């Protein structure tokens, strides 16, 4: 019965039915199920399927955004309970589009996918200078710093982010991820960043692995 309810939460999330997800998450809470179980086996499991389908180009940006909206509707109900139960995110990511670049569709998708993997993501927005990445990473004790760029002319700002962490003596403490249309593995290596992934789903997987690795 409970398993079936979790399954329905996952399926409704995948279809982007925010209202249904909210009602069913409340139903699950009322039945005494733990918030963590609802999160992991209902919402995150649904978001995982979205990630896999997006990676395989079976679904597109609108479907991901609508699923993420449904996930948000569910997690809002769970958040106070998760805090009460002392449930921690698996890691913290500070994320932003680098200085000079205002594009945020890619960043937002990666952010949603990362949240779907159980990571806490601090969104720094767009046009983010290197020093702001550093300040936010310190403030939020982030294990991961994720930089996005769409333009060939702004991608070099990612190097400034890496250098800023070096200058503060924090380079070893954080995993620096880079992504965006013009970014390649070679570029990632050439600027001394740690991880490049070509799409939102694999970026979220890599971030989750890195966060677990950092906290292990």
């Amino acid at each position, binding site marked *: 019965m409970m398993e079936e309810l979790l399954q329905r939460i996952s399926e409704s999330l995948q279809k*982007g039915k925010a209202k249904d997800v909210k009602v069913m998450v409340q139903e699950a809470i009322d039945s005494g199920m733990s918030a963590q179980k609802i999160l992991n086996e209902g919402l995150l499991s649904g978001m995982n399927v979205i990630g896999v389908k997006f990676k395989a*180009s079976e*679904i*597109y*940006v*609108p*479907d991901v*955004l*609508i699923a993420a*909206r449904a996930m948000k509707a569910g997690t809002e109900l769970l958040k106070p309970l998760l805090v009460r139960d002392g449930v921690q995110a698996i890691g913290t990511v500070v994320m932003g589009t680098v200085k*000079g*670049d*205002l*594009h*945020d*569709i890619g960043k*937002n998708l990666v952010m949603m996918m990362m949240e779907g993997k159980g990571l806490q993501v601090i969104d720094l927005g767009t*046009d983010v200078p290197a020093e702001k990445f550093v300040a936010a990473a310190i403030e939020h004790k982030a294990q991961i710093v994720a930089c996005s760029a769409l*333009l*060939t*002319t*702004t991608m070099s700002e990612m190097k400034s982010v890496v250098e800023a962490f070096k200058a503060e003596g924090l380079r070893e403490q954080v995993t620096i991820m880079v992504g965006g*249309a*013009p970014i*390649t*593995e*070679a*570029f990632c*290596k*050439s600027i001394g960043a740690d991880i490049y992934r070509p799409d939102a789903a694999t970026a979220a997987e890599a971030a989750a692995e890195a966060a677990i690795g950092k906290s292990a």
Partner: protein
Amino acid sequence: MNGKERILKTLKHEPVDRVAWVPFAGVHAGSLIGKNATDMLTDGEALFDGLMQVHKLYQPDGLPVVFDLQVEAEILGCEMHWADFSPPSVKTHPLADTQDMLCDCLQPSADKGRLPMILDVMRQVKVAVGAETALYGLICGPFTLASHLRGNELFMDLILEAEYVQNLMAYTTATALKMVDLYAEAGMDVIAVVDPLVSQISPDHFTDACHTAFKTIFDYVRVKGLASSFFVCGNATRQLEVMCLTGPDSISIDENVNMKAAKEITDKFNITIGGNIPLTTLMLHGTQQENMKYVVNMLDSLGHDNLIIAPGCDMPYHVPAMNAIGAAQAVRETDATREMVKHYEAPKMDIEVILPDYQNLKKPLVEVFTLDSATCAACTYMMEAMNVAGEHFGSTIDLIEYKFTEKVNIARCIKMGVTNLPCVYINGELKWSSIIPSRDELFGVIDGMLS
């Protein structure tokens, strides 16, 4: 046959003497004359001088006059964030918080925004080189323009507010038609509708929300007696068919789409395809010889009818001129260029590559080394064969493609001792070189490793 005739015949699907070449030198033209991107997009003199330099150095058959998808958005009230080395970005979206439609009175006319400067340059370029070169007027596609006006909310509107999206698309279609009128009057031969965002929505959403808009625009361009092109960016493989159904004379794609597979689709509709020299890995970071070799390889692996060679999209500002000249030469003098670069080997890399610990892998590792499965026919088939295995064996194996177009992969090829492309290594051992294994043979080898 001059360049203009070559382009127009190619877009009418008629035979030509050689494949046509269209370098998308937008803000990049500024790098040829010491001007920045903002100069190129706001100062008519700089724009004209830059285009003349592009014409002189890259000898194009077709020449886009201005490559900036924000011209219309700026007129319609979006604020811009200007940059030195790229076109401006949209900073604010006038419809972000409202579903009210903009006033028709805001629609473009010859005296609004940067249009007086752009139209003036178009006329000058027409006089200067328009007799022998086809001029492209680029307009912002209706879906991307809708996103400029509405912001990212547009993506969710597609699902939640279909009627609103219809209204917004009707508005942006009207904008496009005004731009077609203005650019036709200024002497453009080809209208390119540039809509990078259509690769981000499903073919079904495209059909529901965008088909009518694009069909209306391409039909209108035809009525005006001009040729049309549909530019898209990103992996638009799955959208190509529905894009074809809107009836453009040509489609232009970037390196995210497999050119050979794309051409099979466009050929079915008798639509010309243009593309798709990789912008960053090759044009920006590659050598001249790499660019020449890549273009020769494209020409050797694709049918020459209904084909235009072009960069994947607007060239980055800092592309070395010699790389674009190399690409131009490869198109214009393919046989001589093939001979020039046949012994060319990429310079030694100082990139450190760490090979996997092949003796202690958790599961079989299939490594496919290709020139680029998106453009090299043999590589396409090799990669397709491996992808079949990837689907069959799922997570029990690891499968990875290393494209020779990326420097780090060239370094990996050198370290692995790869001599022929495409080839396949399994667990670090060369299994197939240039020969694509049969399904049975491939599955047999992998099964043997799994058991």
